[in-house]
C-alpha cells in the first residue's frame, strides 16, 4: 500500500508546482480573487509564477502581497500542488527584498504585546476602543481602524494555571496543553475550559514552557523570526512527544503551524520536528480520538438556551489539518441542538491580513456571505475554532462567537453560564 512518503511531490513545496495543469480550480475557489481585482488569483502568482522564480531572483508579481494565505487553493487542488505554501514562501522572499513595514513587524509579534500589555489592560482596552486612537493608528501605520482587536484579559492563563491546585492524582495519564498567545493574554477562559475538560476526562494537564507558534511572523514574511519561535517550541515540546504524551491546543491555526507549516512553509527539517508534528492535536481532534477509543466521557447535558441549529464555521486553518470536523463530531454528542457547518470557505480575516488598512475591505467582502448567513440564523451565537476568525465574525455579525471547548465545557457542567 502506498504511504505518503512514496509521493515525494507531496512533501516538496516548490516542486509541487510541476503538478499544476492550469485548470484554474484554485483561482475559482480563491476567496480573495473573488472580491478584488488587486489579486489575480493563486494560480497566477503561485504555480504559474513559480517557473520564473529563482532563489536568487525577485518575485515577478507584486500582487502576491494580496494573498491572504488562507490555503483554500491548496485544499481544492486536485493534483497536490501546495499553492498557498508556494505563495507564502514567495511573499517572504519579497519581504526580504523590500524590507518590513513597522506595521507588519508589530503584527508579527503579538506574542509580546499580549503579555506586555496585560498589566495595562484597562488603559489599553479603553484606548483600542477610542475611535480617534484607531484613526491615528490607521493613518500613521496602516492598522485598520475597523479591524476587531481583542481585549486584554488583565491576567494571563499561565498566571492562573501556576496558582491553581489540581485535584487530579499525580499518577493519572498526563497531557500537555499548548495554549497559544491569544489564550494566554486575551481569552484565558478558553484555556481554563480546556484544562477542565481534559481533567474531566481524567488527564493531568501539564503546561510546560512554550512560545508563539510563529505563524504571525510567517504570515508577515519574517521567516527567520518565525523559525526561531518554531525551533524553541520544538525544543520545549519534543521530549513530551517522544514519550508519547499527547500535546493538545485550542487554536487550530497555531497547531497547524506546528503540524505542517514548520516543514512545508518554513522549510525546516529533522526528526524532532516530525515527532512534534505527529504528537500534537487540535483539542477536538484529540477528544474525537478519545471517543473513537471509547474513552471520552459522554455525560453531556443539554445547555440552557442552546437549541435548534447553531452555525459553525470551520476555519481555513482547521480545514488544512485534514482531520475532518472534529468539533462537529463532539458537538453532535451534546443533546438539544445541532451545529451546522456553513458553506462559506473563509471569514476573510486570515490571521493578521484583515488588520491591514489596505486589505480591510477585502477581508470584510470575503466573509460577507458567511456574515449574512450567521446574521440570518435564529441562533444567538456561532461556533468557530480559531481566535481571529471568532473576533471577525463577532464584530461583523454582532453575535457571540465561541470556541467549541466552551460548549463542551458547559455541557459537562463545568461552567454554569446561560448562553
Amino acid at each position: 500500500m502506498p504511504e505518503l512518503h512514496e509521493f515525494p511531490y507531496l512533501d516538496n513545496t516548490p516542486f509541487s508546482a510541476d503538478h499544476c495543469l492550469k485548470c484554474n480550480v484554485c483561482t475559482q475557489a480563491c476567496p480573495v480573487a473573488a472580491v478584488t481585482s488587486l489579486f489575480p488569483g493563486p494560480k497566477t502568482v503561485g504555480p504559474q509564477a513559480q517557473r520564473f522564480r529563482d532563489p536568487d531572483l525577485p518575485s515577478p508579481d507584486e500582487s502576491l502581497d494580496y494573498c491572504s494565505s488562507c490555503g483554500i487553493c491548496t485544499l481544492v487542488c486536485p493534483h497536490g500542488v501546495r499553492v498557498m505554501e508556494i505563495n507564502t514562501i514567495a511573499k517572504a522572499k519579497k519581504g526580504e527584498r523590500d524590507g518590513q513595514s513597522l506595521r507588519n513587524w508589530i503584527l508579527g509579534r503579538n506574542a509580546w504585546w499580549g503579555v506586555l500589555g496585560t498589566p495595562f489592560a484597562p488603559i489599553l482596552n479603553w484606548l483600542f476602543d477610542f475611535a480617534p486612537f484607531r484613526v491615528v493608528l490607521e493613518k500613521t501605520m496602516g492598522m485598520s481602524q475597523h479591524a476587531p482587536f481583542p481585549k486584554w484579559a488583565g491576567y494571563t492563563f499561565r498566571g492562573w494555571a501556576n496558582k491553581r491546585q489540581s485535584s487530579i492524582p499525580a499518577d493519572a495519564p498526563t497531557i500537555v496543553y499548548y495554549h497559544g498567545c491569544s489564550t494566554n493574554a486575551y481569552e484565558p477562559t478558553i484555556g481554563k475550559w480546556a484544562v477542565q475538560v481534559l481533567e474531566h476526562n481524567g488527564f493531568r494537564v501539564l503546561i510546560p514552557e512554550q512560545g508563539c507558534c510563529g505563524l504571525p511572523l510567517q504570515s508577515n514574511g519574517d521567516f527567520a523570526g518565525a523559525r526561531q519561535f518554531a525551533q524553541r517550541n520544538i525544543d520545549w515540546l519534543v521530549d513530551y512527544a517522544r514519550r508519547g504524551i499527547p500535546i493538545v491546543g485550542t487554536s487550530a491555526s497555531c497547531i497547524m503551524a506546528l503540524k505542517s507549516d514548520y516543514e512545508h512553509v518554513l522549510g525546516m527539517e529533522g526528526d524532532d520536528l516530525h515527532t512534534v508534528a505527529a504528537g500534537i492535536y487540535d483539542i477536538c481532534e484529540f477528544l474525537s480520538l478519545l471517543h473513537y477509543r471509547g474513552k471520552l466521557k459522554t455525560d453531556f447535558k443539554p445547555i440552557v438556551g442552546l437549541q435548534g441549529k447553531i452555525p459553525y464555521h470551520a476555519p481555513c486553518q482547521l480545514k488544512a489539518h485534514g482531520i475532518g470536523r472534529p468539533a462537529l463530531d463532539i458537538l453532535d454528542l451534546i443533546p438539544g441542538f445541532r451545529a451546522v457547518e456553513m458553506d462559506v470557505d473563509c471569514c476573510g480575516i486570515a490571521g493578521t491580513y484583515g488588520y491591514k488598512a489596505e486589505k480591510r475591505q477585502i477581508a470584510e467582502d470575503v466573509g460577507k456571505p458567511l456574515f449574512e448567513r450567521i446574521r440570518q440564523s435564529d441562533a444567538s451565537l456561532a461556533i468557530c475554532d480559531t481566535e481571529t476568525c471568532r473576533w471577525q465574525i463577532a464584530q461583523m455579525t454582532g453575535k457571540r462567537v465561541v470556541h467549541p471547548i466552551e460548549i463542551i465545557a458547559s455541557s459537562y457542567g463545568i461552567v454554569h453560564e446561560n448562553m
Partner: protein
Amino acid sequence: MDDLIIIGAGWAGMFAAALAVATADTQNKLLRIRVIAQGIGQMVVTPSWISVWDSAQGDLEHDLRGLTVIAPEHPYALAGVESLVNAIDFFEEFSGETLGLSYLGHAPKLANFAIATALGTVQHPAVVPLGYRSSTADALFIGFEGWRDYYPNLSGSNTATIKLPVDRAWDATPTDLARQFDKPEFRQAVIDLVKPRLNGAKAIGFPAVLGLDYNGFANDYWGEAFGVPVFEIPTLPPSVPGTRLFNALRRYLLDLGVRVQIGHPVTRGIIEQGRAVGVEVAAAGKSTRFDAKAIILATGGLYGGGLFSDDRGAIWEPIFGLPVQYDPDRTRWFNENLLDPRGHPIHYVGVRVNDQMQPLGSSGSPFAEGLYAAGQLLAHPNVEGAPLPTETTEGVALATAYKAVICALQTLSITT
C-alpha cells in the same frame, strides 16, 4: 464511527452522498456520512450536463437494454438500466426542488439533446441545465471584448461583441464574470448593451457565465429581458454551471450534517477480517483514521486520480489495492490516431465490480464486504457496439452511484 464514507467528490461521490442523506432524511433517520476527497471534484470542470450515451439515437432506454445484452460487464448493465432511470428521476426532481437549479430531460422517454458548444460543434447529453436549452437557428451569439475564453464566431455567423464594464476582462475566469452577473446592475448594463444589437435575432447565446448564485433561467428573467429565448454555451473550465451544481450540493450536504472534507487524499483503505472498516487520510503531521460501516470508492479513473500508472506498464488502484482490469503491454494502451473513433484502450481500464457494485478480488468474488465502487473507476468493456467511456461519464457515475448507495444502505437497514 460513520455509517458511510464516500471517497471522492466528483459526480459519483457527490451524487452518492446526496442520494444517501436524502433517502435517510425522508425516513427521519440520521445517517453519518463523510465525503473525503483530495481536491475539489471533477464536477466543476464539466459542463454540468449528464451524458448517458452521446452517440445513441432515439430512445436511450431501448439502446441501453440492448447494451446489457452485448456487454453484460458494462457498468450500465451491472447497475441495471433501472438504476440509471431512477437516478435521473431523482436527480431531476432533487436538483429542481431541493437545490433550486433547473434541469431538463426528455420526458417520458430518455433521449439526447443537441447542445451547442463553444467550438461550434454539437454535443448530445441527455439531461441538461435549463440554460443550455438552445435553438441556434437565427441566434445572435454574444462575445465579450478581450475575453480569451469564448469566441462567438466559432458558434455562428450572427455575432455581437460587447465591452463588459469590468477591469482586466482578458484575465477573467468564467467564474469571475459569473460573479459580476450576480449583481442586478451588472445584468442590466449587459441587457442595455445587447438589446440594440438584436436586429431580429430569434434567440441569444451567451457563454455560460450568466450568474454563479443567480439563476435567471428558472424565472425566465433573461427571456423577459430580451423578448427572445436566451441560452448558455459551455465555456472552457472552470465551468460555471458545474460550479453552481457543486456549490448547491455541498451546501445541501453540510446542512444535513454530512462532513465534506476536501483537501487531503485517502492514502489507504483498511480491511479487517474480510470487511472494509475504514480509511487513512494523509492529514497534516500524521495520518488520520476514519471508520465506517460502508465505504463507497468514487475516486475516478486514471484522469481523476482513482487509478495510477507507471512507465513500466503497471496500473493500480492505490487505496485498497483492488485488482485492475488492463493490458500489461503498454504498447497496446493507445491506438495510432489521437482522435480514433473508438478512443484508446487505456480509457476502458478500471476496477471490475459485480451487480451490487462490490469490487471483485482476483478470484472473482467480492474483494471485501462493505466496500462499493462507482463512477469512472469502473472497468468499461471495450466491445463492438458499446459506448466510449467518455460519452457516458455522468450517466455511469449516476447509475453506479445509485446502485452502490442502495446496496450500502441495505447493509445499514435503510431501504429505498
